[in-house]
């Protein structure tokens, strides 16, 4: 497993050293979220009712920002061949890349979420549910995003392709994440979080295999 953690550390180091990825993701999350009060009006009732959907949607779009480079730079500089010829199975490689992506994008979004909550006039009782919804949703965004990044590897305009490929798969995550926040505010039960947790486990179990298959295909 030393290779797994070495790859996570390398991607974190590269992400932090290149500097902008995590910052851009957070800024996009906050700025895009801040546009909604201008568009739909500043009334707290209306905003707080829509806050879950807005937060989950801008989180999904923010996570997409850096996805096209998840495997592309390794592919372009020859690192992917070296990674594929190493003892670490491609499935674990895919998991390591998704974990690094989540640490660089999902975790900063979680940290920034309370600020978006303030912007969207979220009631005090909504912050915990918002964080829980994002904590359960963002790992799926990274895992599915990794699959999309592997599928478009080597394709021209991969960044555009990945959007069309992955956004439809994000829909159940958005629906359940937003429903989870509603549940936290007393509208509905806690089932959405349970289903979302189930989706986390399913994505964790299935996407590394699919991503590894896509990476093998990209090397031909």
């Amino acid at each position, binding site marked *: 497993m*030393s290779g797994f953690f070495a790859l996570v*550390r390398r991607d974190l180091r*590269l992400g932090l050293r290149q500097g902008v990825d995590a910052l851009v993701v957070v800024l996009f999350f906050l700025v895009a979220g801040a546009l909604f009060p201008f568009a739909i009006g500043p009334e707290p009732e209306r905003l707080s009712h829509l806050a879950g959907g807005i937060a989950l949607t801008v989180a999904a779009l923010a996570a997409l920002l850096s996805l096209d480079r998840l495997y592309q730079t390794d592919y372009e500089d020859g*690192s992917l061949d*070296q990674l594929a010829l190493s*003892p670490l199975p491609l499935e674990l490689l895919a998991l390591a890349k998704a974990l690094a992506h989540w640490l660089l994008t999902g975790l900063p979004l979680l940290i920034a979420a309370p600020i978006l909550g303030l912007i969207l006039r979220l009631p005090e009782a909504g912050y915990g549910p918002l964080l829980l919804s994002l904590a359960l949703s963002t790992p799926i965004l990274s895992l599915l995003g990794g699959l999309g990044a592997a599928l478009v590897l080597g394709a021209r305009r991969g960044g555009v392709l990945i959007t069309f490929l992955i956004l439809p798969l994000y829909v159940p995550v958005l629906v359940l994440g937003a429903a989870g926040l509603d549940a936290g505010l007393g509208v509905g039960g806690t089932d959405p979080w349970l289903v979302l947790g189930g989706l986390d486990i399913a994505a964790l179990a299935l996407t590394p295999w699919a991503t590894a298959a896509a990476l093998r295909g990209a090397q*031909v």
Partner: protein
Amino acid sequence: MSLFQGNGLACWRGEIPVFEDLDFAADAGEALWLAGPNGSGKSSLLRLMAGLLEPVDGVIAWGGAPIAADREAHRARLRYLGHLDAVKPHLSVAENLRFWAEYWDAPHNTVAPALERVGLARLREAAGRRLSAGQRRRLALARLLLAPAALWLLDEPTAALDSDGIALFSELVAECRARGGIVVFSSHEVLALPDVRRLALEGIAA
């Protein structure tokens, strides 16, 4: 039967046949030079040998067993140097090499001697993006020194190297062969390496 051999190999890139019915063989301590014009399939053959590509036809075997039967064992015995250097521009020279040492579970104390050997010790803190093409190639060669491997597959290893770099490459090949390793490399240059078997690839005429 040779330790490492391929029989009746055919390779296609998309709709284009690259070569057909190609054989090769190499034993411990031997070096095989893949020679041929652009597009004749040198890089494709190296990728087949590494298991990065599947042959359309034919079998590649190590010790009589097809490499496809145990990919993990084959990966563990080889080092591959592609025509790209796999150098990260935002990591330092030492960080680049240390990553591969960690990833391959090679001892950490091999990094400094490897950099010394390829002449990059004084640039250990320099960012990868500051290196010249020849220095990036030297850093790629340093990866070969992190842990001994039974099979080196090298795609244009001397590209961009100066005369000292080419001499260094010759030394590394000799040392690998002396350990009983097999070195397969492609090159457009005629390198001054002793006892090298030449495998000419002609490609398939359009």
